[in-house]
């Protein structure tokens, strides 16, 4: 796959039919990279305005749910003259394959990018010795 160039793209979460949000404001789907390397799956997620305190990661039945809240105060005494992007919370869920060792998932966030390292479980195949009678 070719490397992607930087682009402006911020998509809102589509609310499933019949489900309504209980809080006002917009919610966006953060952009993510997922790659596999050296027996680990690495997930990189762009979450500008989110830090370790405002990020929630929940793992529930093989679904990894990310929600980042963005505390944003518009500059006081100023009027918005140009708006090219919206500001709101982030939300996205990923399903995790069963070959991930769920107890060893590590997460860190720096400069608005979350890095999740999901190590693959050590294969549990065993060779069974056959005894001769």
């Amino acid at each position, binding site marked *: *796959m070719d*490397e*992607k*160039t*930087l*682009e*402006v793209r*911020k998509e809102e979460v589509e609310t499933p039919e019949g489900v309504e949000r209980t809080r006002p404001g*917009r919610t966006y789907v953060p*952009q*993510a*990279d*997922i*790659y*596999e*390397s*050296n027996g680990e*799956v*690495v997930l*990189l997620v*762009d*979450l*500008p*305005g*989110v*830090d370790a305190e405002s990020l929630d990661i929940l793992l529930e039945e093989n679904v990894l749910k990310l929600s980042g809240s963005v505390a944003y105060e*518009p*500059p006081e*005494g*100023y*009027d*918005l*003259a*140009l*708006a*090219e*992007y*919206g*500001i709101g919370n982030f939300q996205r869920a990923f399903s995790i394959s069963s070959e991930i060792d769920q107890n060893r998932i590590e997460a860190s966030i720096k*400069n*608005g*990018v979350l*890095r999740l390292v999901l190590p693959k479980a050590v294969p549990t195949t065993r060779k069974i010795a056959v005894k001769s009678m």
Partner: protein
Amino acid sequence: MWWREFDGGRRSLWREMDRMRREMDRVARTGLHTPAPAYPALNVWSNADGLVITAEIPGIEPADVEISIVGETLTIAGERKPDEVDGERRYHRRERGYGRFVRTLQLPYRIENQAIEATFDKGVLTIILPRAEEDKPKKIQVKVA
């Protein structure tokens, strides 16, 4: 010219309605945001004393953000580098972009260059640009004759 399009009769009216529908779709999709001509997208706030510009640039180091101002032109540049990993990488999903970006913005007035403040926090850049003192509008007192 617009009236010439209407000369075509009903068909061009449909075209016009189609254009309006597309425009409404765009507004519904993006809100009332102006599409950004280049990366990164900017929000600009203004008042009588100056401007505040914000941009979301996650994944770059604060020291790698280059901000320069020449006359009334502001330039924001930098580079987002890919994650460094030894060995082979197999991508399952690739939505984030990398590379160098340069965005220039024509400001409405001169800026007090010594007083520019820029902060970079959690991937969000904020630049405070105070309007040059000599460029501020002067209030003229009207005397009663």
